[in-house]
């Protein structure tokens, strides 16, 4: 049975500042969703809150994965349960080799009951799989031995995120501005990868983006628009299209209350 992620009335703040003010979202495995909205509307916050970043405090609401309470889980357990966040700005971890990191990650995600210190997945299998996936992502084999994101270009970092997506095969992936900072060719390549991975693995994908390029390859079945910390509209692919051509003015007009909150948030964030 396909999995289902249900977010209800989610309120999240960072420090004293409320960012999400009641988000409702429902996703099924295999669906492609687009999440759009102006800067500061709370898109990334939603992604971080789903992944369990400690800086994002959940003040109310719920996130359920097939009825299981995600908010009760540590970030590592969320990953093991099948949630994945592709970071907009992946961090550098000096001295940690891509290869070692990924072998640990995969051992845990594929054997969710694995305890610290227990066997990792077999080196030979892992190596082969990593080599194949890297070549699909057009990542040079030497990257396996490099330190995680250390000295990587923007594009290399993004490809590394997609590589992890390909290896970890989550049920639901949240791509936070994966297209930002990439040139057209790179965006096309990443988009195509995501499309293929989501089809092959029946992933549910939430694509957070300002642009429609990523969406040309990954035509969303559902488009959500965020404003002032809420999802104010949900529609089909045509909604993404409309936003791309017309911007958010009409959205603000249709949702004056959220627009005011959005303006406040922008002021706080200094957008």
């Amino acid at each position, binding site marked *: 049975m396909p999995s289902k992620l249900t977010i209800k009335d989610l309120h999240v703040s960072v420090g004293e500042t409320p960012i999400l003010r009641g988000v409702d979202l429902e996703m099924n495995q295999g669906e492609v969703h687009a999440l759009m909205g102006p800067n500061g509307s709370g898109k990334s916050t939603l992604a971080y809150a789903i*992944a*369990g*970043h*400690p*800086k994002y405090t959940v003040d109310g609401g719920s996130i359920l994965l097939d009825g299981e309470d995600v908010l009760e889980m*540590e*970030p*590592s357990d*969320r*990953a*093991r349960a099948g949630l*994945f*966040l592709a*970071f907009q700005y*992946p*961090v550098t*971890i*000096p*001295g*940690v080799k891509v290869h*070692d*990191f990924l072998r*640990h*990650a*995969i051992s*845990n*995600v594929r054997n969710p009951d694995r305890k*610290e*210190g227990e066997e990792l997945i077999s080196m030979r299998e892992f190596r082969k799989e990593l080599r194949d996936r890297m070549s699909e992502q057009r990542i040079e084999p030497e990257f396996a031995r490099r*330190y995680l994101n250390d000295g990587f270009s923007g594009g290399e970092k993004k490809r590394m995120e997609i590589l*992890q997506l390909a290896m*970890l095969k989550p049920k639901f992936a949240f791509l936070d501005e994966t297209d930002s900072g990439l040139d057209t060719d790179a965006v096309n390549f990443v988009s195509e990868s995501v499309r293929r991975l989501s089809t092959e693995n029946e992933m549910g994908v939430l694509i957070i983006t300002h642009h429609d390029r990523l969406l040309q390859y990954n035509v969303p079945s559902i488009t959500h628009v965020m404003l002032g910390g809420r999802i104010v509209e949900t529609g089909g692919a045509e909604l993404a299209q409309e936003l791309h051509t017309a911007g958010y003015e009409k959205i603000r007009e249709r949702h004056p209350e959220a627009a005011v909150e959005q303006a406040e948030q922008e002021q706080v964030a200094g957008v």
Partner: protein
Amino acid sequence: MSTETKSQVDIGDYQYGFHDPEDKYTFKSRKGLDKEIVAQISEMKGEPDWMRQFRLDSLEIFESRPMPNWGGDMSELDFQDIFYYVRASDKQERDWDDVPDDIRKTYDRLGIPEAEKKYLAGVKAQYESEVVYGSLQEDLAKQGVLFTDTDSALKEHEEIFREYFGTVIPPGDNKFAALNSAVWSGGSFIYVPPGVEIEFPLQAYFRINSQNMGQFERTLIIVDEGAKVHYVEGCTAPTYTSDSLHSAVVEIIVKKRGRCRYTTIQNWSNNVYNLVTKRAMAYGDALMEWVDGNLGSGLTMKYPAVWLMEPGARGETLSIAFANTDQHQDAGAKMVHCAPNTSSRIISKSISKGGGRSSYRGLVKVNNDADRCKSNVVCDALILDPDSRSDTYPYIEIDDADVAIEHEATVSKIAEEQMFYLMSRGLTEAEASSMIVTGFIEPLVKELPMEYAVEMNRLIELQMEGSVG
């Protein structure tokens, strides 16, 4: 972050004491230190008069020197409550059942073979290495390499021994060097003849039938012109001991164009004061490298030094310190530029955790006629929780204007973003922090021989487990 140390990895003295069972000492000194005991030690070892006198003179120096008032807290160190000389066979008398559980568990988790476990725990004093390493010994001997324990070297190679012994670190150097000079026993002696390059690392394992590491071991290495050696001592695995003081002296001479690398990993139990003097003299175009890893011990004070004696000499120290609960690592390096065109590099990485304290203490000294010297010092400290502490004490003394000295120091905490990133990929908090710590010291660990590197990483994992929360 609260801290609970689950796997308190206890470390003992890694006494690879391969003593000869035929060589029966009939003596065990009483506790404490005086002329009688020092004279007895020398007598029991059947030493020549000059060594006996050297020991007695050293004792006087030791007694006349005040305790150092810097570094760490040594107020509980009682010199009269220590056995200064125990014949090797007495060390076997510990029962396996007396070895603390946590240490036995650590051995299991490091995957140490049964025979070696008992050896490390001091249950068994002899490690069955003769068969494996016998042929290597022969090869070395054919090339004229001398590799033996220091006591045997005094007996068998007295002339060369006497020429160098005590020349790099004289007894008057410091209180603990004087103590070692008075009561030393065991340690390694290596002489590599001109032009001989030993390609595999020499380890205590290779030596047989000799008492190696003890509380007061004394190591002397002479690398003749154009020769090359890499010596590895110590062990990442915890070795259990009830001895409370380890005070070693390591003297190294690297002649023109010679190369020497000395790798140590020490991992002592918390009851041990680890106070070691290590110094090398590097002559024209020679290279001396110290790779020094310190885990465990209540207090470690150790600053491997290179004196750059002639033009073109290079000195390098890579040091890693891990201070856990109730541990203070006061470690660093000294580089003394005595000649022009000499260069030195110090890289120090320290980790403090669970209330542990690590200090970098280093000296770069340039004498006044040492023109065009270069020195580069990089210290990185990682502090894992608010209870832990890290300090840096860089001393720079320059008597010459024409030099290039660089010093960089960073102190960091494990970044929340790095932790979250790794955890969001399914790693537990402990796995994530241990991976970040392992990554932090990776630039140094990769310099270690393979088996040490593997064990070192495993040990860090054990130290990190269940410790962050």
